[in-house]
């Protein structure tokens, strides 16, 4: 197949939409001149850099945790101590929100888009909620650091992170009194998928993870006296398996490569997996000894990745939608907390997945209210409009709501009106575009689905690029990538 310049333009744009958070017109024009395989190589190359989030101050967090632990162990607290305990929780909640904003801003401004996109993928795969922002940041950094490396290393690091150990109750997993939560989710959601293991495999492997816990500083700790070092039978093998051995046995099973490849395919290619393509990926992934970069390269250089049924057909996640829009138009949020309100209203509040299975995605993102909201957000963000909606109260915030509730006056349900208070940098945006660009060409650039006659007609009588941009990003077609 001979590629025309236009085909290459579409391919590079598609690659950057899926592997990153979109692309500027300037970069796109530059990269479209290159062979797509070279573009993929360069993308992987420039995403080698790992730049962790360092917002949460470890020593301050540790100090707070020590105080907190002290207060929790006391029976009767003085009013002063109760106040202190409340203040620590409040501080943690505040820092957790800052962490969310720090990551969203990082994604908006990143120069290593694939690495951030992988972090977002693993964030949903190893879904976890933790009220302690230090632990949450640590897990996020693990997912970023190993997100393009060895899946084995990633899996072990995640399994040993305080955030996950706590979330899946592994501190309660002790010799003679096993808690199977972690072992179950490890196999059901993180590696093999339902149907590829037995209840006995869960019971036996849970014993291998007894004693996996962490110390006060948030460092992994293997408590030998809580560990069951007896013989275990796991997938027909018999031995004194430790946690790492269990993970290795799981990785020996090709079903793991298949499960991860299918999930990657659904996230990056299409909600409805083509099993032949998944098989191709899984075999390559398995042979590469679970090298995630190899898997991604294989996928991005496959011809089918760019085939018609895979371009402009996926519903953007709320994160992809918000970050893509903000990135494209160089949006600054003067009141960054609005980013949290938007995430929550759209149904994807990062660091707060619905459960350990993560966000279901695809058409689950869309219902009448979330779609109406998505179609209004571009005009709100790009034209700084007033928000007259709000997300649901997060269940974890109920205690705060309980404290702040007053008896009668609650006519708007405790949800004050607010403004987006954001600025799009139109000058900068327009500078990325060629001077001669027509509204129709801008539309072709901003939308991934093929243009219909109706859209062509709608934009052809448009006055300028700026109003065209607002109109296009408000279309249902803009919800797809």
């Amino acid at each position, binding site marked *: 197949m001979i590629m025309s310049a236009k085909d290459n333009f579409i391919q590079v744009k598609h690659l950057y939409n899926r592997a990153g958070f979109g692309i500027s017109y300037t970069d796109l024009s530059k990269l479209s001149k290159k062979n797509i395989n070279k573009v993929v190589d360069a993308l992987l190359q420039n995403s080698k850099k790992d730049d962790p989030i360092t917002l949460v101050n470890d020593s301050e967090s540790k100090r707070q945790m020590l105080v907190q632990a002290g207060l929790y162990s006391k029976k009767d607290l003085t009013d002063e101590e*109760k106040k202190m305990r409340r203040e620590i929780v409040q501080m943690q909640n505040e820092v957790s929100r800052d962490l969310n904003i720090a990551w969203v801003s990082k994604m908006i401004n990143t120069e290593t888009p694939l690495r951030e996109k992988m972090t977002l993928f693993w964030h949903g795969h190893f879904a976890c909620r933790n009220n302690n922002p230090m632990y949450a940041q640590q897990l996020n950094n693990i997912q970023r650091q190993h997100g393009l490396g060895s899946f084995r290393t990633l899996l072990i690091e995640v399994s040993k992170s305080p955030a996950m150990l706590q979330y899946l109750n592994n501190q309660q997993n002790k010799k003679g009194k096993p808690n199977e939560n972690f072992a179950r989710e490890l196999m059901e959601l993180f590696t093999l998928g339902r149907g590829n293991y037995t209840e006995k495999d869960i019971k036996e492997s849970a014993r291998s993870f007894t004693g996996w816990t962490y110390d006060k500083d948030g460092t992994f700790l293997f408590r030998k006296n809580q560990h069951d070092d007896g013989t275990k039978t796991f997938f027909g093998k018999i031995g004194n398996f430790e946690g790492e051995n269990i993970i290795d046995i799981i990785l020996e099973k090709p079903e793991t490569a298949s499960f991860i490849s299918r999930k990657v395919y659904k996230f990056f290619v299409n909600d409805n997996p083509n099993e032949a393509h998944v098989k191709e990926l899984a075999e390559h992934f398995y042979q590469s000894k679970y090298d995630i970069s190899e898997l991604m390269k294989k996928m991005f250089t496959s011809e089918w990745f760019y085939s018609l049924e895979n371009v402009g057909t996926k519903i953007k996640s709320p994160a992809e939608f918000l970050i893509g829009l903000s990135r494209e138009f160089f949006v600054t949020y003067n009141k960054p907390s609005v980013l949290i309100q938007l995430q929550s209203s759209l149904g994807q509040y990062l660091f707060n997945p619905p459960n350990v299975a993560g966000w279901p995605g*695809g058409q689950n993102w869309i*219902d009448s*209210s979330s779609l109406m909201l998505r179609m209004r957000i571009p005009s709100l963000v790009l034209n700084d409009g007033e928000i007259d909606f709000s997300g649901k109260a997060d269940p974890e915030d*109920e*205690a705060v709501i309980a404290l702040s509730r007053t008896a*009668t006056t609650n006519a708007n349900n405790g949800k004050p009106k607010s403004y987006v208070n954001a600025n799009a940098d139109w000058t900068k945006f327009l500078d990325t575009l060629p001077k001669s660009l027509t509204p129709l060409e801008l539309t072709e650039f901003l939308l991934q689905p093929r243009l219909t006659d109706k859209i062509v007609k709608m934009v052809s009588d448009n006055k300028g690029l700026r109003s065209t941009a607002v109109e296009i990003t408000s279309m249902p077609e803009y919800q797809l990538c």
Partner: protein
Amino acid sequence: MDRRNFLRNTGFVAAGSLFVPAFMKPLEAMALDELSLYKNLVVVQLSGGNDGLNTVIPFGNDIYYQKRKSIAIKPEEVIKLNDMQGLNPNMQALREIYDQGWMTIINDVGYPNPDRSHFRSMDIWQTGSDSNQFLSTGWIGRYLDSNCQTCKFPYTAIEVDDSLSLAMKGQTKKGIALKDPAALYRNTNDPFFKAMLQSDKEHLDEDNLGYLYKTMIETQSSASYIQNTSKIYKSQATYPQSGFANQLKTVSKFISSGLKTRVYYVSLSGFDTHVNQLNQQGNLLKQYSDGMAAFLKDLKTNNKLEDTLVVTFSEFGRRVEQNASNGTDHGTANNMFVFGGRLKKQGIFNAAPNLGDLDTGDLKYQLDFRQVYGTILDKWLDVNNADILNKKFNTLDFI
């Protein structure tokens, strides 16, 4: 799928134009028998884990007073319902409702291996899953998916809120969230929105894009139907000033104006009372009771109480013993309330919680919450609960 099929499957086939769905002309489309006895369900969610033991107080049990030294409600303050249980004094408004036989209290509702996380337990209640199972659809959403006789319209389930709860999301069908029918009507009649929907037949056979357009069309049609049906109705009733009462007032308006909606969903949050519980919970229970009483009387006046069933739940109850901050911590089983004009068993449905037989300080559940759902699905919404709940649950005889 070709366009005709797409339209047929979404219930859009109508005489005349393909783009004028049947429900746009409600009176013509409706058979006369559908106009009477149209059964509604209203789900009321109390978010945060309401303390059931200080809501329906087991004043006849000494253990309650031993475990709750500083936050127990004194026997003389309790609104006594029998010689064991009574209502929190802030629920005075429900006394009359209870005496009318419009209220049933179901004690100790829960599920095996209870989860104490707000998020997870709410997830379980909304999806109707087991505690180690993760479902991405809600129980009402699956009722919509079942494509039954009673659930064919996109406005079959309405949540009075800005965003839609998981409970209301099915695989192929979802409820609709709206706070203000006029605002939604305005938004869907915005020139841009209308232009997007104009003659866009070419998209409707594509997977995801088709789904987006289908959602837009349904939203627009539903918004028109809801607005046009309900705007003429003027409520005579007085409701208390609260966000919760406003939600109920909207629901009453919809029910009383004859909207063909089956399920309504409203919520009240703030029940996570770890600290200084008495005032906070008292205020919330007052808001709840005053709102509910006004709502039920309003329905009665409009002859709709017979056709309405209201069910209230919270994601968990709280531990039997209070904590050191004059509050309570996350627990397990809890009571549920059912209201309506056609209750089969009125008053207190089953035995009061057994405070002498606890599971490490927590109430043991007597009834699975899915038995309550199952009863509603079978006996009120006329579907087989096994189709919705993935296994058959024995029904109860409160309706």
